[in-house]
């Protein structure tokens, strides 16, 4: 384990990782689903009908998959639904439900809470912590027209293809 992860993984309470390991938004691909699904990556399991696939440039050390506590990637006030990752390249693709503005907060927060237990209220607090900690919003590149895909399987295939 890298010193970065070692230090972060053992934080008892959620805390925003600074400086943020998320370096940039590489691309944004809007999508619309024929068959919506419920995301497991938040406690309230929101229904996803449309959104954006974001390809992020991230410090590879922050992408190492572990079983124990490790920093959770957030986009905005919610844990990010990771659908593809290329650790050596430092690339991770996430699903951001709904509309997306020109800028986005993408950051990691360490703690003992996994995404499926994070409530919207906790997510909002974590986002507030991130802004207070000086995490800067990242510019979202201009996106093409929304892709229409059938379902979550097709969306994951699209993410992997990217």
């Amino acid at each position, binding site marked *: 384990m890298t010193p970065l992860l070692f230090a972060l*993984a053992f934080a008892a309470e959620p805390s925003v990782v600074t400086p943020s390991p998320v370096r940039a938004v590489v691309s944004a691909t809007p999508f619309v689903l024929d068959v919506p699904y419920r995301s497991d990556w938040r406690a309230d399991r929101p229904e996803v009908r449309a959104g954006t696939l974001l390809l992020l440039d991230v410090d590879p050390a922050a992408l190492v998959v572990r079983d124990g506590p490790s920093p959770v990637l957030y986009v905005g006030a919610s844990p990010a639904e990771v659908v593809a990752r290329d650790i050596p390249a430092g690339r991770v693709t996430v699903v951001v439900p709904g509309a997306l503005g020109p800028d986005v907060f993408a950051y990691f927060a360490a703690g003992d809470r996994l995404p499926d237990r994070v409530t919207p209220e906790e997510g909002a607090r974590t986002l507030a912590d991130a802004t207070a900690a000086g995490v800067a919003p990242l510019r979202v590149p201009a996106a093409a027209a929304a892709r229409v895909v059938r379902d979550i399987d097709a969306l994951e295939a699209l993410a992997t293809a990217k």
Partner: protein
Amino acid sequence: MLVAFLLACAPKKAQDCPPPDLETAAVDGAPLTLETGAEGLARTRALAINGAGIFAVKTTGPVEVVDAGGTVLQSATGPAEVYLRATGLGAGRVTLGAGEACAASVDIVGVVPSPLVGRPRTLAPFWMSTPSVWAGETVWLGLDPTRWPDRVGQPFDVYVVAHRTAAEWADDATLVGVGGTPVAGTFPEAELAPLEVGAFDAGSEARAQFDVVVDADRDGRLGPDDLLQGVGDDVGFTVLGDLSARGPHGVETVDADGGRWLGQRVWWPTDLAALGPRPLVVISHGNGHQFIWYDYLGEHLASWGYVVMAHENNTNPGVETASTTTLRNTDWLLGNLDVVGDGALGGLVDTGRIGWIGHSRGGEGVVRALDRLMDGDDTPDTFGADDIRFVASIAPTVFNTVDDSNPHDVPYFLLAGTADGDVTGGVDCPACQFFRIWEAATGPKAAAYVHGASHNDFNCCAEQEGRGPDLIGRERAQAIARAYLLAAARGWLDGDDALLDVFRNEYAGFTPLGLDDADRVAATWRNAEGVSDVVLDDFQSGYGPVMSSSGALVTCTADAVVEDRLDDSDAVMTWSDADPMNGMTRAAGAGDLARGLVFAWSAGASPTWSIALPDEATDTTALGAVSFSVAQRSRHPETVARGADLAFAVTLVDADGTEATVAFADQALVPTPYLRAELGDGAGWATEFVTVRIPLADFTVGSTLDRARLTTLRLDFGAAVGAPAGALALDNVELVP
């Protein structure tokens, strides 16, 4: 040797009422010992009535007179042979004859049945009784003259026979020794003299059951006066084989896909159709792992006759989603048995016997899935909570509280490695402290903490992350996993209780056959709460140094005695007197209740921990063992100075002041902590409790200790009993069946 007892009478009219001439097998002058728990004529003693007449039968004390059919006699017609059986413990007398003047009597004493099989030891009492041995291990017979003074000097033949039920014994009492001819011996006169009776094979099922008969009258049949280990339907002793080796069945496997998060690999024995419906074992992988990484376990369990399924596990979002995939995959397979493997499983899976095994987040996921079933939060189509017969977690996370990830009263097994570099088990990471789940379980539960095993030793292919000295690697770790998980499956899915001795027989050094001598495993066991154990002190109430949780008074003369939550308070491993629970990882958050005791002693001291037995615990004749969990305290200065395994002694005291001690310095049972150097100065890791269970019968070897009237249980420490100095943690002091 037959000796007549004629205790009667100067008859008023001898020619009118001659007293009966009574003969038993007791040596001259000794009361006839009668073991309690007679079944049929087993554990009875013969009484020959020589001479004609009708004699009234009178008994005093715990004895009755029966005929060959078991009918209790009020009178007996001689000449005849009748039988005496104990109805309890202690002295008694059988008198035959018409009135005092013309009567003859036999004195008896009812005694607790004594185990016959065990192992010689080098320390007092030089004997350890045991219900299980390993295949190929020499089996010893131990006859203690203190227990049978009426048999001293008498010859016998000993037979080890294939186990028979009570009905089978009644049908055929002929003794047929497994090893061929019987072994001849003589009841020792001075002290227990172990007699080698052979070594035995465990058979193709790695478990063979035997009875042991000491044929006192050497007639080649089980009858009165003989000694039997295996009375009634009880098994005399069990021989266990190599549980890490592949089983007797061929294995077939197929990958199945039921849709999103329903990818599965399934294994089953090739002769499943002949076996009939067999239990299902489900394997749930961890985060970043794959379901195709557990062939070593799936093939192993299938080779022993189980249907096994490993499934895709949605662990990335968390434990809740992992538990959902365990539930849905189990449900899907059970609902598609006619499809998977071209229908090879159709009608051949016992849906009422399911075991769940999970690794890492999957290890917590299976516990969470059970909790959801128990709470009614999830209702599968094909099975329910009652169908989950055991849950096992390999290095599980503990992201939830233990109220949410709770094994409840379902049998639970925890397997983990001390060198885990992911779910570390460390004091700084509550979500990694897997013993918290174990502590929350209220059913029968076992744990095996394996020195030098890493997190990913338990799958085939994830990147190795082990941290610490003497890493054992995948081959060894997986052999250990195969053995223990098979024992759990056999014990809890098939009711093969003897297999669970690999967990609860630590006192006998009973690590599974197939493990290397270098393999070190700290094993713990606890029976289901509130069922049968007499809990003397589990430290969960009655806080303080003088009061036990049972309300009995406790005295501890060691240094720095502290009773508290088993929780390292400063989250670093560097020793500090301010954190006496250093290295404890069994209570960290809401719902964690585990408490225990710690203490230490220095060179020159001989401290004790003793408890005055509560009234309900003074009669131990129906109980089997003293049990407690004990550990060396990580990085405590005395632990560091010792740098080796540790031993002490256990003493029982009866109401007459008689003391009997079992010392186990020749066992060195309390392991030195794994010397992992992280989180501060020094080396040592999460506290490794082991459960020590000492058979109560061992305390009476060579002793007149009265197990029916005990007053005190005492633990003795110091140079004389194994360790001049040390630092220990103690928990769950109990008397168990």
